[in-house]
């Protein structure tokens, strides 16, 4: 499977990360990390362990010129400059924790501006993007809503949908997607359906367990790479059920109910 994005030099079949070093200068204990279409990775570790720096290295296509000394390759080579510098050719969308939409305009005007900047011609793309965003959030986004009036979860949902459909980025980097209160499982499912590669920086057990691989960070470097290969499936199913239970409680609390059951099935 190859990415459906044609570029001057062809298509992207993989993105490779070559090791750098941790904060003390110790080399990272891996040969290379290869990301292919449809892969999901989560990056875990304590605060300050270098999780965000890792995805920033990918976003700027580091070539041994960042604090970590890592190098990022596309199809095994140093990418062409257009890939890195022209956002319409760049195969990566980064959605950071502090990313906001500052534009004070309606959702459909905002999206159509992006569509124009991308020189796309599909007239239905805006409605599709809003529909997709609405699958990620419980509070429906209306096309006429002001961007600045959207909740954190709605904004994050809209940006993920925009990255999938309008930016059409094959690799999406999501920094703490769980913070915004969006349907994480649905996001992961849709990203897989669209054959996107995703890297989650996360503290969330469910997001971590739903990823194919886990990078464990420590002191600014990758400490180890875990590949569960199905060994975590029992716990993953249990965590998914617990998550669903908590979601239901959350919805009932939001709806103003008292939760008076004397126990509950997980």
């Amino acid at each position: 499977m190859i990415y459906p994005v044609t570029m001057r030099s062809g298509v992207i079949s993989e993105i490779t990360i070559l090791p750098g070093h941790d904060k003390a200068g110790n080399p990272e204990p891996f040969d290379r990390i290869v990301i292919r279409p449809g892969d999901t990775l989560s990056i875990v570790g304590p605060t300050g362990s270098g999780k965000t720096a890792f995805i920033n290295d990918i976003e700027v296509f580091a070539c041994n010129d960042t604090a970590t000394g890592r190098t990022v390759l596309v199809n095994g080579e140093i990418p062409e400059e257009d890939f890195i510098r022209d956002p319409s050719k760049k195969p990566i969308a980064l959605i950071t924790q502090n990313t906001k939409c500052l534009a004070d305009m309606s959702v459909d005007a905002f999206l159509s501006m992006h569509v124009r900047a991308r020189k796309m011609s599909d007239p239905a793309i805006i409605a599709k993007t809003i529909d997709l965003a609405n699958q990620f959030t419980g509070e429906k986004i209306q096309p006429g809503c002001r961007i600045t009036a959207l909740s954190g979860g709605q904004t994050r949902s809209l940006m993920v949908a925009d990255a999938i459909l309008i930016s059409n980025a094959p690799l999406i980097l999501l920094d703490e997607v769980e913070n915004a209160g969006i349907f994480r499982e649905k996001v992961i499912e849709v990203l897989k359906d669209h054959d996107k590669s995703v890297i989650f920086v996360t503290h969330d057990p469910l997001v971590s367990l739903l990823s194919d691989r886990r990078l464990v960070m420590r002191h600014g470097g990758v400490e180890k790479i875990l590949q569960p290969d199905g060994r975590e499936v029992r716990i993953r199913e249990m965590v998914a059920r617990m998550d669903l239970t908590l979601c239901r409680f959350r919805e009932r609390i939001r709806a103003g109910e008292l939760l008076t059951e004397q126990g509950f099935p997980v």
Partner: protein
Amino acid sequence: MKLLIIAGPPSAGKTAVTRQIIRHFLGTKKCAFLKIDVVRAFEDEELREEFHIPARKIYSGDLCPDHTGIMVLKDALSWAKGLETDIFIVESAGLCLRCSPYVTQSLGIVVLSAVSGMNSPLKMGPMISLADVAVITKTDLVSQSEKEVFREKTKEVAPAIDIIETNAIQGTGLRFLMRAIDQQAEISDPATILLRGIPPLGVCTICVGKREIGWQNHFGVVRKLDGADDIFRGD
């Protein structure tokens, strides 16, 4: 000696970009710095203390900072040359969005902030169109789509400009700016340096202190509400 002229609106991150340039070349090239500002500026003191480089400032006061820059640039080049400077960085105030302090034989850098609104490049004109490089800062704070739209609008004003997106505090993506500086030619002949464009008009009866409203009370450069075009004519 290479000359860099940095312009951009207030709070766009001009000094953050300057810091990254000085830090990058520290130890290999000798930098000197001049700040042109209107009322108060602290950049010279900060940079001198942080990097131990020669740094100074000049206040334009009642004059347009661009006019001040043009007036003092020749003296400033001699000052920097006398210090055996390799890279001389001149940072302008950039207040009225009409500034265009770039000269020939220099690298003109406009610093724009991605959070200033997506139409802001369209409001600036020669500050962008006469620059060689546009450094767009704070791109970590806006959405992907806003970043892309900001870029398109900048290119609308200056189709051939070299656009570099960065979080200037972290210095991400600035390797392309450093490369442009590396490739920049040295000043060949200071006596032939010319301003690239025409600066905003800076002398009129309002500038010199007449405060009455209405064009009937002024002379030199006047403008009526109706029937005026963008070219101001003396009256």
